């Protein structure tokens, strides 16, 4: 480009910035006002509060509904020292029915209280085992014996009527 052309070019584009979308002196750069910022913070505060409401609703709803009485198995189907899975209180809630060697019945929610992996019954050690982090729960109480869970397995209340075992509630 010659000197003359360069001069001509400069004259034809007097004040046009090199990168218009990144102009430094445009009023469009002012995108937030003080008032707008405060409104944004208030909206964030309200949104954070509203985010907690479903938790309360679920807790209150759970108590109101109560628990159904569901037949989970026949006595003859689960031998001493054995276990069988079932769903309680809903179809998507896994649970585990355990027939202890001393003849007593226990049932627990079937998901680990650590990260919700499905636990299984280990008849050799007579413990409930979570395979994800090698956690173990006591069959008698659901207490944590080993591993990272901080809370015991929630116990499902049972009622043995005749030759049928019913789940009637969850101890919280």
């Amino acid at each position, binding site marked *: 480009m010659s000197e003359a052309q360069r001069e001509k070019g400069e004259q034809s584009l007097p004040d046009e910035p090199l990168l218009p979308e990144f102009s430094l002196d445009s009023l469009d750069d002012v995108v937030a006002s003080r008032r707008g910022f405060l*409104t944004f913070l208030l909206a964030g*505060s309200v949104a*954070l*509060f509203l985010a907690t409401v479903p*938790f309360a609703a679920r*807790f209150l709803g759970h108590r109101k509904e109560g628990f159904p009485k569901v037949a989970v198995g026949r006595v003859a189907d689960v031998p001493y020292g054995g276990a069988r899975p079932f769903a309680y209180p809903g179809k998507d809630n896994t649970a585990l029915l355990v027939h202890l060697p001393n003849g007593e019945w226990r049932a627990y929610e079937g998901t680990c209280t650590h990260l919700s992996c499905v636990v299984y019954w280990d008849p050799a050690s007579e413990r409930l085992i979570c395979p994800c982090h090698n956690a173990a729960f006591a069959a008698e109480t659901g207490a944590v014996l080993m591993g990272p869970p901080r809370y015991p397995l929630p116990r499902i209340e049972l009622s043995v009527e005749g030759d049928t075992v019913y789940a009637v509630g969850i101890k*919280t």
Partner: protein
Amino acid sequence: MMNQTDVQTLQQRAGQLRKVAIALVVIVAAQIVALEVVLRGWQGRETVIVFAGIGASALLCAIAVIIFLLTRKRLPR
């Protein structure tokens, strides 16, 4: 042309808005902590902790609304 009094008034208002903004930022940060408390309580099935977190969040939200409305009242748009 603005006189000296107008400039001082504007400076005072700007200072008030800055304080309000700081207060709201602190409240929002505390609400994030409260939400974390609720989530942990939920995970551990601790009803008391869940409702304590929700209560704290509600209280902070109410304070934020009051502060915002007071600011709106005091300062013309």
